[in-house]
């Protein structure tokens, strides 16, 4: 017996998750009672309900504060220079329908949905008709925006599918093979990427789920996705990756001159956009964990605890690769990760997230690593640095690049415009 009947009780819910919260608080609905029951306190239930209701209302007020939601409209897309939120859900899609007008409609709809989702709203109100599925899947009901940002990009194959390859800027072509690449089909390819970052994993996933849900009926298919996390006490601190080293210290320099390193300025459809490189990097935690403290630092070229470049005291002190030990050996090993990146003179914006995904039963090792994401004015910045690592990087012993993608992330959207408009209509 799997035929399910639908109940049809209760009021249709509003579009706004904040209004939903408020309504629940006043009505004392089961939603709040459930929340109160889940609270780890021994208070009488009635008191707990009252407190939760009060909290819900005060949260509603504070959610108007810009610190809780990130504006969707602007010169650049959010999620690039936005301070990295705690959680990511990243997805790569295949474009199934290459009719230009249909693609325009898709991006218009995505723009509409993204503008709602990033402000803590559902994509549509629940229907009065309870015989159809809810318009929004709803797992973010009663959750704030949590600094959600949604960042959209397209790959060179997207342009080809739409016959727009002549619009591809010179540098926008698939990344070359890099030494030691072990790319797997399941983590490569694709035409469109969407990066959802938020300070809550469910808010990030909810956003992607809505964007994909209707689009996949006729426009796209899902190719691969990865969730990930960043941990910090304060957003101004550099998060540590799973090798326990600070990851993204050099961003401070990149951000100081964002126009030079991050934003495209070529008067094309990418004007104000940025190129995203994504690499799914498997990190061999077991081999790392049996590596000596000193060798770990030699691998990165940084002090493990402070994040300072070797030879310096503080995280943000400038890198000096000329420093020598008394025996003449360089303080920072020439095959360390930081040294090899630094010698290129290139900068990029790292916006990576760690991932863990259970155990690889074949090897009895963690399936864990880094969803490396970087933004740059030109893909060449990444290519130069990656080639500098080559076969030399000490880090190679502990990591394997298994997924890859290059995406052109559109410029930002002004109200009344839609994502990718300059490309699709230009």
């Amino acid at each position: 017996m799997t035929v399910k009947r639908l109940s049809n009780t209760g009021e249709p819910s509003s579009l706004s998750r904040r209004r939903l919260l408020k309504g629940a608080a006043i009505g004392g609905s089961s939603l709040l009672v459930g929340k109160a029951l889940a609270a780890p306190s021994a208070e009488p239930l009635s008191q707990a309900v009252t407190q939760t209701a009060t909290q819900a209302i005060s949260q509603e007020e504070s959610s108007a504060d810009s610190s809780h939601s990130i504006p969707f409209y602007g010169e650049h897309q959010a999620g690039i220079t936005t301070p990295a939120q705690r959680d990511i859900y990243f997805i790569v899609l295949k474009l199934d329908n290459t009719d230009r007008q249909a693609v325009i409609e898709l991006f218009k709809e995505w723009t509409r949905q993204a503008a709602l989702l990033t402000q803590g709203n559902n994509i549509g109100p629940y229907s009065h008709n309870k015989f159809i599925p809810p318009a929004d899947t709803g797992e973010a009901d009663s959750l704030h925006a949590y600094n959600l940002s949604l960042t959209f990009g397209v790959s060179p194959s997207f342009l080809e599918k739409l016959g727009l390859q002549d619009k591809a800027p010179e540098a926008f072509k698939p990344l070359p093979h890099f030494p030691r690449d072990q790319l797997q089909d399941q983590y490569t390819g694709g035409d469109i990427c969407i990066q959802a970052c938020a300070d809550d994993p469910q808010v990030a996933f909810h956003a992607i789920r809505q964007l994909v849900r209707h689009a996949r009926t006729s426009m796209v298919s899902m190719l691969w996705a990865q969730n990930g996390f960043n941990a910090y006490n304060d957003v101004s601190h550099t998060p540590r990756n799973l090798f326990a080293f600070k990851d993204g210290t050099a961003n401070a320099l990149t951000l100081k001159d964002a126009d030079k390193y991050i934003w495209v300025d070529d008067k094309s459809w990418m004007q104000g956009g940025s190129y995203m490189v994504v690499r799914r990097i498997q990190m061999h935690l077991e081999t790392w964990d049996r590596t000596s403290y000193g060798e770990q630092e030699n691998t990165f070229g940084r002090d493990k605890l402070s994040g300072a470049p070797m030879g310096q005291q503080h995280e943000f002190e400038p890198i000096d690769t000329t420093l020598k030990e008394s025996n003449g050996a360089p303080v920072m090993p020439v095959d360390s990760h930081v040294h090899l990146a630094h010698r290129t003179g290139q900068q990029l914006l790292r916006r990576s997230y760690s991932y863990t995904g259970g155990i690889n039963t074949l090897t009895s090792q963690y399936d864990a690593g880094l969803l490396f994401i970087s933004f740059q004015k030109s893909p060449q910045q990444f290519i130069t640095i990656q080639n500098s690592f080559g076969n030399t990087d000490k880090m190679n012993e502990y990591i394997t690049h298994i997924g890859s993608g290059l995406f052109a992330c559109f410029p930002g959207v002004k109200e009344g415009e839609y994502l990718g408009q300059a490309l699709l209509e230009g």
Partner: protein
Amino acid sequence: MSLRKTSIALSLFSSLTLSGVSQAASNLDQELQEYKTFAVNKIDGLVNQTQQFVDYLNAGKIDEAKALYPLVRMNFEAAEPIAESFGDLDPRIDARKADLEPGEKWTGFHPIEEILWVNNTTAGTEKYSVQLMSDVKELRAKVSTVEVTPELMVQGAVDLLNEVSTSKVSGEEEIFSHTDLYDFQGNIDGAEKIFVIFKPKLTALNADLVKTLELRFAEVNQLLAAQKVDGKFKFYNELNKDEVAGLAEAVNKLGEPLAQMGIILG
């Protein structure tokens, strides 16, 4: 099991007490009748072909029995929303080995499937075929009494797709015979029939939805047809990974708009 049935019955009750629903339902009498006729015909086909199937088993005609097996079952799969309405009749006819609770008696098509394909004999099927025949006849008798509701049709169409997504795509429905594509087609046919019955009214409500559904059904049917050789479906374990993924995604793409058929009850 009984607890779940109670809650379903309760929610069914609450849905029927809404005036808007009963109004919509009263306008769908013709559609309900049409679907009932379809279901009765399918179950008639099930009874007749099961009799033929059992005759082959009794006569030791294993090749004929194997060839007929998936065709008999297509009737059942197409009418499953109705067949499922009668409590334990569905599991008695259609339970898979993996569905059984410890000590539960296994009956229906699938133990016969195991004997035919694993033991490669008809010997030993008679202790199941007698009960199977009696169960499908009981199903036929009960179908005449079933009250078809619009909710059953809308949810039934979606459930048929869900069946495909959860047990056909994974190849776990016919683990011995690997004739899953017949069940797959049966489920799709059952869902498409409901869509076709609703189509005139749906077109008036949302012509785009109808267009999308026609397109998506056509795509699934095309992919299925591509797996036929000389009019017979390939065995499911002969499909490669891409072919399975293609079918699965075509069903995903169909399921989402199919669930919107509920606008007919709005």
